[in-house]
């Protein structure tokens, strides 16, 4: 088991390196193929009507004029060993993992990302609980009452949830419950530690919005899974043994139907923790998603690299947790 985890962790490191190389390649090689030189790249990071000297100064400052492998080497070194930065009046040390300094604000990237994590975490985990409980419950009920009004209705709503984009449901929710009837006015992130009630109140709409999409998916998945398992032979056997129906459904049926759900849940949650971009944008919540938008808009390489690697890390870890759980349950996976 330990070797399994160690192997996976090593693979994770390689994966993150590959991700960072890919980002570097997209950032530097594609403009270069389009005929852009580093001087032109540097003009993006100065004010308007820059003088030649000003562009050269920023090119030098950002290190854009050194060879690519050197820039990448510095980036990796900073993550492992940290780096020093000259703010003009003092030299500060940025401890590992140092994702460098923003091209725009010249402030370290890592603390900014860390301060955004609670927002995304609150949003993602809250919504996850909502959709997992809601989606699975509806799915199970629908499967057990196949063909009834409840089944048709809930599956219809689920179809709606899957097809409506988040920015649409988000806007509707805001329009109704924030602007028109201000039940949840002025959605702003308040840290859980500061005021749990306000924290929850401000997140209700984003949670519902995000959970609506996922719950719909999970309800349909659970329903399909339940329908399949409930027609298995061992369910018939269990019933024939005289087990109570509740036990048949939850212990034999749901447990088997839930395994694929757990896998998908791991992936979805990992993906969300890297930034629920559209939800955060719709509700103006400054988490990793908005951080990503901002980084891309400013062509801020250190920020883009940082948030991409963090997102990749979350996905990999979520998958790792799922795989470990699997390995515990099913020894055949431990290869």
């Amino acid at each position: 088991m330990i070797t399994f985890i160690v192997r996976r962790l090593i693979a994770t490191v390689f994966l993150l390196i590959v991700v960072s190389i890919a980002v570097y390649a997209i950032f530097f090689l594609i403009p270069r193929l389009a005929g852009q030189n580093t001087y032109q790249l540097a003009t993006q990071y100065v004010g308007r009507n820059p003088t030649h000297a000003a562009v050269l100064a920023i090119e030098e400052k950002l290190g854009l004029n050194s060879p690519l492998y050197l820039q990448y080497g510095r980036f990796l070194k900073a993550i492992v060993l940290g780096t020093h930065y000259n703010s003009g009046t003092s030299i500060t040390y940025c401890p590992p993992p140092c994702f460098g300094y923003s091209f725009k604000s010249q402030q370290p990237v890592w603390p900014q990302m860390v301060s955004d994590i609670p927002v995304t975490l609150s949003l993602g985990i809250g919504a996850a609980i909502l959709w997992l409980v809601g989606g699975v419950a509806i799915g199970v009920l629908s499967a057990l009452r196949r063909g009834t009004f409840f089944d048709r209705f809930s599956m219809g709503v689920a179809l709606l949830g899957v097809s409506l984009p988040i920015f649409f449901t988000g806007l509707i929710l805001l329009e109704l419950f924030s602007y028109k009837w201000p039940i949840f006015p002025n959605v702003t992130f308040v840290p859980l530690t500061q005021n749990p009630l306000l924290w929850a109140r401000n997140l209700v709409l984003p949670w519902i919005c995000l959970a609506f999409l996922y719950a719909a998916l999970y309800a349909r998945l659970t329903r399909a899974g339940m329908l399949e398992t409930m027609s298995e032979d061992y369910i018939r056997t269990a019933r024939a043994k005289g087990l109570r129906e509740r036990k048949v459904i939850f212990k034999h049926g749901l447990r088997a139907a839930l395994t694929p759900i757990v896998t998908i849940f791991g992936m979805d949650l990992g993906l969300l923790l890297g930034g629920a971009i559209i939800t955060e944008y719709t509700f103006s919540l400054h988490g990793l998603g908005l951080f990503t938008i901002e980084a891309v808009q400013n062509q801020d390489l250190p920020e883009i690299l940082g948030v991409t690697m963090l997102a990749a890390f979350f996905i990999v870890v979520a998958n790792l947790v799922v795989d470990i759980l699997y390995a515990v349950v099913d020894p055949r996976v431990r290869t």
Partner: protein
Amino acid sequence: MRRPRTIGLAALGAAAALALAACGGGSSGSGGGGGGSNSSAPAYNAAVTKVINPSTHKGGTLTFGNTSAPDSTDPGNTYYAYMWNFVRLYTMPLMTYKSCPGKCGLQVVPDLATGPGVVSDNGLTWTYHLQPDVKFEDGTTVTSADVKYAVERTFDRGLFPLGPAYFPSLLAAQSPAYPGPFKDRSKNLMGLNAIQTPNATTIVFHLAKPFADFNYVVAIPQTAPVPPNKDTGANYQLHPISTGPYKFQSYQLNKQLTLVPNTDWKASTDPNAKQLASKVTMTMNMNANDIDNRLLAGDLDVDAAGTGVQAAARAKILSSPTLKATADDPIAGFTWFAALNTTLPPLNNLHCRMAVEYAANKTNYQTAYGGPVAGGGIASTVAPPNVVGQKSFDLYEATTKPNGNDAKAKQELQACGKPSGFSTAITYRSDRPKEVATAQALQASLGQVGIKLSLHGFPTETYDANFAGVPKYEAQHNIGISLYGWAADWPDGYGFFYYIADGKAISPAGNTNLAQLNDPVVNNLLSKMATTNDTATRNSYTSQIDMQIMKDAAILPGVYAKSLLYRSPNLTNVYVQSYYGMYNYAVLGVK
């Protein structure tokens, strides 16, 4: 990027300044203190010409929402127009714009200084005297050395790349070039020879050559004093030391800024700002539609960017008389235009360019920008009406035949030897839907007289750095027309025209003279203007330059940009300051 404008009223400033300083703060609030007396009934566009809800009521939180984040909160490192407006809440540059509605708000007046600069006979030295009793937020008195240091640090373009670079180019050079205080080896870090501080309240700027607009240059926030021992270089943006009515309480980079009243600030020394709200916040990176909706719902007071509401809110506001009465549609200061490449055949022939001027459908240009309210008025001159000295004229029937005059266009095509038209390419910023629509509209209207345009869109970030106006690229790719927009750093003809029309401004990359116009008449007028202090003469130069560019048909003006601003009923002392084309943030209060 939002472009700020420059102001060229130097001379006007000199004469008017004392009078202005006297009536400085704009007469607000007729006593009454409490919840903002509604002396003026709200009406559409009312805040363009007068103060709405004048009040001296103190308290409350003034909330700004921002669709992005400032380029920097460091007064030495910002070039966004709205930030030049906003920083006055925590800084006092030597000069600033008079706080008042209407054209009055285009005047440059002393702020930290006691009067406008005194210029020497040869035009090379500008002397300012500082108010003796202005204090930083820590209680220390501001001296001329702090102003000198503030300017010096902006010479470090590696640390402060974003602000304008007028000082390095205008001040007398020294050898080796001054690298900024952080790299300066001299002991006291006061090594810029071109600025002298004979005593604590006097500062003298030595210029490389005469520059009549210098009062405008020192109105840029870069002259706001910075105490050398409190400077933290790249980190100064996290807490600039305030000289204005408010100071930083907390700043979470790119997220949330909170300002609280600066107890060391005195209203008597800063007539252009007010300290009414007990707290000012700016929330950054908000969704643009969310900002509009919160404004309308009363949860937010000001949209910081000041560029107007989005299409959804615009429809809501214009269709409701109550909402419309609390909205303003001021001139923003931009002209959106198409530059005609004066060096590329056949457009190097004046008549071919005139054919384009006549054939273009200006109504469609305006529609592409959102129509008369959201877009702006059809332009027939290069400079917009809020440039001092601008005169209105119309050489190519832009306003009389806004749909184009094909007959005249065909005559001009005959005259230039291309009776059946010609082919050329047009560049535009492909991530700006309005420019895309404009390019398509021009393609259609010019096509009617046989001028065939091929469309070449590029991303904004690299647009003028690599493509539009880059002489080599344009020649190689047959680029005859480039869409662009311009607002000056200060509102006079020099500030507006230098970068877009002077032959000396043409550069191999990052060129802003997109027409590559190198007309001796224009060049000469601009260089005369740079050394002329007399207001009337300067104003006449402004309209002459404008006229000459239009006679050259180097620029096809599109629209004078306007933005529909929502004036929250919560606000007091609210009005549009013409220089910024948005509400004056330095004087706002809340009910």
